């Protein structure tokens, strides 16, 4: 993988996995999101920053068609998702993976059934194959031993990793992470970020990651996953990952869309305040 010192905000973009156009939504009050537009290119990781309650999770749900906007469109894999019926959206959503803020694991199912949930709905897939793929996904997140456990017996960090395994098992073409490290201790957060980096660098899956932890965002920019050592490695000084860029929301508006270089040199007072 090559690493550039002056990354472009639209790196290697030949086509777009996601295109958000003029998205606005309000819930019985002032607008939560106003006129939001941006794109996610193949292989690109976009980190969505912003204070708590600014509409980051709402934006993620809009992109996956889980809620509908008041105005605007989202093109997911080229399809206008708000022009589609709910039953047509299920097939499209099956091509994406989403990690929810509080994991949203099915508490009445075992880890095996949670991770293999999509596969279990397909009667054409044999139980043995499901078991194998679940074990592979759990090994990817380092939780092979939790196969038969219930979510209630896992720690917060383990639940988050199981949620990542569930999102990855069907080899998604696009990933949405909603505050995957929120509320976790620094060590567990770093483990989760390493997993996200592994998916980015090993499978080149495009993603949109919501976080309000700058440290996580910067780690994703300044490190890459080394398959040989099986861990993340810091890039040489001055280099950053060219496929990782930033978005920032403030009071429902997209106030920043660009690279790490642009972010740290931004004159926007809110960006400066957020970084400091």
């Amino acid at each position, binding site marked *: 993988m090559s690493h550039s010192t002056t990354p472009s905000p639209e790196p290697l973009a030949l086509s777009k996995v996601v295109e958000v156009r003029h998205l606005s939504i309000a819930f019985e009050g002032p607008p939560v999101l106003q006129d939001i537009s941006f794109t996610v290119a193949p292989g690109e990781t976009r980190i969505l920053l912003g204070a708590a309650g600014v509409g980051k999770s709402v934006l993620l*749900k809009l992109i*996956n068609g*889980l809620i509908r906007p008041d105005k605007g469109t989202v093109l997911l894999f080229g399809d206008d998702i708000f022009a589609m019926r*709910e*039953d047509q959206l*299920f*097939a499209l*959503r*099956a091509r*994406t993976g*989403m990690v*929810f*803020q*509080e994991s*949203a*694991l*099915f*508490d009445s199912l075992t880890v095996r059934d949670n991770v293999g*949930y*999509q596969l279990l*709905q397909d009667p054409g897939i044999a139980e043995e194959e499901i078991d194998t793929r679940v074990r592979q996904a759990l090994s990817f997140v380092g939780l092979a031993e939790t196969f038969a456990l219930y979510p209630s017996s896992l720690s917060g960090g383990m639940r988050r990793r199981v949620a990542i395994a*569930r999102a990855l098992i069907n080899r998604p073409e696009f990933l949405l992470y909603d505050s995957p490290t929120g509320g976790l201790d620094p060590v567990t957060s770093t483990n989760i970020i390493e997993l996200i980096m592994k998916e980015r660098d090993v499978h080149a899956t495009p993603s949109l990651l919501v976080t309000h932890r700058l440290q996580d965002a910067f780690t994703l920019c300044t490190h890459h996953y080394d398959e040989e050592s099986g861990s993340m490695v810091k890039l040489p000084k001055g280099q950053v990952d060219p496929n990782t860029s930033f978005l920032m929301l403030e009071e429902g508006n997209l106030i920043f869309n660009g690279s790490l270089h642009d972010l740290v040199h931004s004159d926007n007072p809110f960006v400066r305040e957020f970084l400091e």
Partner: protein
Amino acid sequence: MSYPVLGRDSNPASTRPAETMALNSLDLTAKQTLLTVQEYSLFAWKAVRNLFKPPVYWTDFLLQSDIIGVGSTSIVLLSGFFTGGVLALQSAATLAQFGANGLTGRFVSLTMIRELGPVLTGVMVSGRNASSMASELGSMVVTEQIDAMRALGVDPMRKLVTPRLYSCVAMLFFLTIVADAFGIIGGGFVTVFLNHQNGTQYFSTAWEALRFPDVVQGLVKPLFSGFIIASIGCFYGMRTTGGTEGVGRATIQAVVTASVLIIFVDFIVTHLLLTLLGVG
């Protein structure tokens, strides 16, 4: 000289806003009620329609049949048995005044099969299952499990609601038969052991009194009750908002609405069937 009239505000300007507010509130309530009825109708129609288009989750139908049917058997059996017993106790005293002790079996069987069996089963199962459906689905909504299911490409209506709906309709039918049977047995128990009457006479009059329209009436009603329990329980569960407090609220609304609707629909169906079948 004019005097202000008691009970009426002398200043028209101050009454108008109050009247307008009351009218607006009434208008809003009426619109909200109509909207809820519309949403419920669309929800129920979608749940019914899902059976005729794949994917259909047959395993969930069996699972729900076990939870609703087998799980409710004991409460239905006990409530049927004791209701039949109470009917026999109450009726024996009244029938004795007319020298018609021998008609206790007829009274109990007709009352249980035509009315009390279906209604009682509906209300009992509603208390157990409409509440569990509303709280289970409501908890899944507030913990984003429903959103997660949708994000994984699985339709919660097909996976969660449709199996509950059809299983509940099918199981209510059989549970009502159980309630009817144990109601008649309960009546027989009281007749023989407490009223010291002839058991053979009780069971033979209970059997002879029954006509085909009575049985039809008793077995049509649970189909409606089953539909009401599952559709109302799932409807309130799936539209839960407001965290754990909202789950509690949805559960209460589901049980109250389902119980009242069961009795209301029972009245309508009874009236229709009495007209159609000519049961006197």
